[in-house]
């Protein structure tokens, strides 16, 4: 079955003109790549554009792909580079507007909404929502290097070695960045530790 084959084998098949192999690759990696991009750039529309661009680059560069390379490393390198480029293009917007919606969904509120007030949230749902949004904010405030390492490590379960390959820095540097990222998040979320305890 073509769906059971490894990413690298599917890519080799696509190199031979098998469109179905690319479809399988797309269905397998579309969601995780999208979420990585979304957490990196923080914008759904931009994330969708970048997702499309990432896979377009995969199509264009299919001839150059070598079987020895890990496909996810190649794919996330493309996605990460796109995210970095996008972030640099938007550098002038260093801080998100407090009034701007954090999400495009209807139920998403603004950062003002999630900044905790003095009173405690009444129900668990609102607690979770508050925590998640606070988390999103804290991630967004990480530096670019720390953010990409943190996202790949904590959300994509990538080993440090692979992260180092994607980012293009030594493995120890990746670990160092990860340590700084966690420390920062801990400080950021320290005041919400009680909320975190209450989280499911």
């Amino acid at each position, binding site marked *: 079955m073509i769906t059971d084959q490894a990413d690298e084998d599917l890519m080799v098949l696509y190199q031979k003109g098998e469109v179905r192999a690319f479809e399988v690759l*797309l269905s397998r990696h579309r969601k995780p790549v999208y*979420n990585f991009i979304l957490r990196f750039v923080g914008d759904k529309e931009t994330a*969708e554009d970048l997702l*499309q661009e990432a896979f377009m680059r995969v199509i264009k560069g299919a001839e150059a792909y070598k079987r020895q390379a890990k496909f996810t490393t190649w794919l996330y390198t493309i996605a990460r580079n796109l995210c970095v480029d996008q972030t640099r293009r938007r550098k002038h917007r260093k801080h998100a507007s407090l009034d701007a919606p954090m999400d495009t969904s209807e139920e998403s509120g603004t950062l003002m909404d999630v900044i905790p007030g003095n009173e405690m949230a009444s129900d668990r749902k609102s607690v979770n929502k508050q925590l*998640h949004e606070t988390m999103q904010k804290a991630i967004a405030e990480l530096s670019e290097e720390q953010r990409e390492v943190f996202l790949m490590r904590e959300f994509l379960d990538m080993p440090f070695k692979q992260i180092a390959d994607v980012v293009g820095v030594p493995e120890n540097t990746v670990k160092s960045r990860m340590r700084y990222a966690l420390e920062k*998040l801990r400080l950021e979320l320290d005041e919400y530790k009680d909320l*975190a305890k209450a*989280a499911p």
Partner: protein
Amino acid sequence: MSASDDERDDDARLKQLRSVWVSMREEEPSDRGMAALMAAARTKASELEQAAQPSWWQRIAASLRRPPVLALATVTVLLGGALIVTQRRDSMKSGSVVETETSTKGAQDNERGYEGEHAPGTGAASAGSASTVDVTIEIPTTVPTAEPALAADPAATENVVHDDKQYRGGGSKTAKDKSTTNATVAIKPRPAGPTRERDDFAPPPEPSNADGATMKAPVTPAPHAGASSAPLAIAQDSDQAPVDEPVGGGKAASQPQPTKPSPKKPIARTPPPSIQGEDRVTADTAKAQAQQTTLDQLVKQCETAAAKGDCPAVRSLAQRIFSTSPAAYKTRVANKPAIVRCLPQAADNATSAE
């Protein structure tokens, strides 16, 4: 997360924080732009497929590896090889025929020279009661160079033996053979078959008396041999295979020895396949040459015997000449009064033949 990855901060607070982001829901991307993406993928796939197609030489190589083409190539190679081998064999055959003719001529010359030398000896031998018959056996062997040596020396009369080893070692047995009867026997080699036996020999023309009795080749000591040399009985067919049987010299010379049948010994003679064809040609040529030589010898011996008044020997020789070649008998024997005097019966034969 992989277990091998260390450096994981297991701080309790971090675990709590991690539970927060682990519980964060994953967004589902919209299908926007997917159609365009798949269209681009298909276009690229067709390009890749064309690029992945083998080039013309790769297709040719692939088609050459197919079984029918391989079979055709095998047949071509086999036919070509057979053609080359055949051409080589033909060229070798023609070369050996020329060589054989040359060597046979040389043998004839040598033979004449030898007879001139030993004529008195022959006369002395024929002074006895037994007549002399020269038997020269020419055996085409697998060693082509040995053949001319045998033919060149008329003294190398064959002591017919059944050992193939002695066949081949023609030169080494010359001393022994000198004491044996001279007879000319051309032996045709069997063209095929792994072994050859003694019955391959073509029987020499048997002299017969006027009453039709077969004349066995009487054994006389060769003129150049010692008194103790062994006489030789020559087998005319395979059942009468001769053996060497040493007997008292003087006695043996006076009367012919009966031949003893000896057990057949198969001779493992396997001429190389490339020489078998040329052997036949060589044997035919040699046979004709040997016949002519025998005729000459017989005529000379007949003349000598007639000059000495040995009429029985003359009759025997004349009979052999007649059986070998009636024309030669008429031209070379019947018109010589010295011989005709001893041959009333042979003269009758000649008259009747006319």
